């Protein structure tokens, strides 16, 4: 089985991730998921590609801590986080988060919390490639 927390170039399967999550416990009554995708338009410009760069070892370690923190904070039964790096096109998948709990509220709230924390804690940067040139993205609050 694939690791619950991964950074990879290749696309991921949401079905496989959800199946792996469900496989970890039959007590799971709710699964919340978040899928982050590449937009082909940003800040008034067309975006041809987005490239991601990570401080790989730290990013993976921070994502593992994030999963453990979420499991503890929301009493989750399990959680999975997958983030792509390298170059993606508009519409491609970037990040997938799945949180499984006994009930829906914890699953949904954990999912929201994980993506918000990931943006603050995990050393990954994105650069948009546009017809006007390349630009590193300045994060939104």
């Amino acid at each position, binding site marked *: 089985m694939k690791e619950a927390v991964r950074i990879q170039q290749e696309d991921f399967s949401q079905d496989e991730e959800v199946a792996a999550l469900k496989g970890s416990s039959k007590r799971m009554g709710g699964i919340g998921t978040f899928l*982050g995708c590449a937009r082909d338009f940003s800040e008034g410009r067309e975006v041809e590609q987005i490239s*991601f*760069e*990570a*401080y790989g*070892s*730290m*990013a993976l*370690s*921070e994502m593992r801590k994030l999963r453990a923190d979420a499991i503890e904070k929301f009493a989750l039964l399990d959680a999975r986080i997958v*983030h792509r790096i390298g170059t993606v096109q508009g519409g491609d998948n*970037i*990040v997938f988060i799945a949180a499984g709990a006994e009930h829906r509220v914890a699953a949904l709230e954990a999912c929201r919390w994980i*993506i918000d924390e*990931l*943006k*603050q*804690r*995990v*050393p*990954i*940067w*994105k*650069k948009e490639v546009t017809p006007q040139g390349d630009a*590193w*993205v*300045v*994060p939104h609050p």
Partner: protein
Amino acid sequence: MINVLFFGPVADRIGGNRLQAEFRAGMRLQDLRDELVRQYPQAFEIVSMMAVNGEHVRNLSLPLADDSEVAFMAKFSGG
């Protein structure tokens, strides 16, 4: 030696992903940062996060050990 890492927008401004700084006994993170700010002022305009040996650090008075890995990073934009 101290291994200094740069990524993304900071690496672009530095013109490279890594450099080595000489380790001195009693050296603190602030000393290394001051040294690099003098050499790369433009890059450090956007540095807002630091890590030592892969762990987030906010305390500039942290003593550095020889062979430490230090990263000076711009705000993250993953996800």
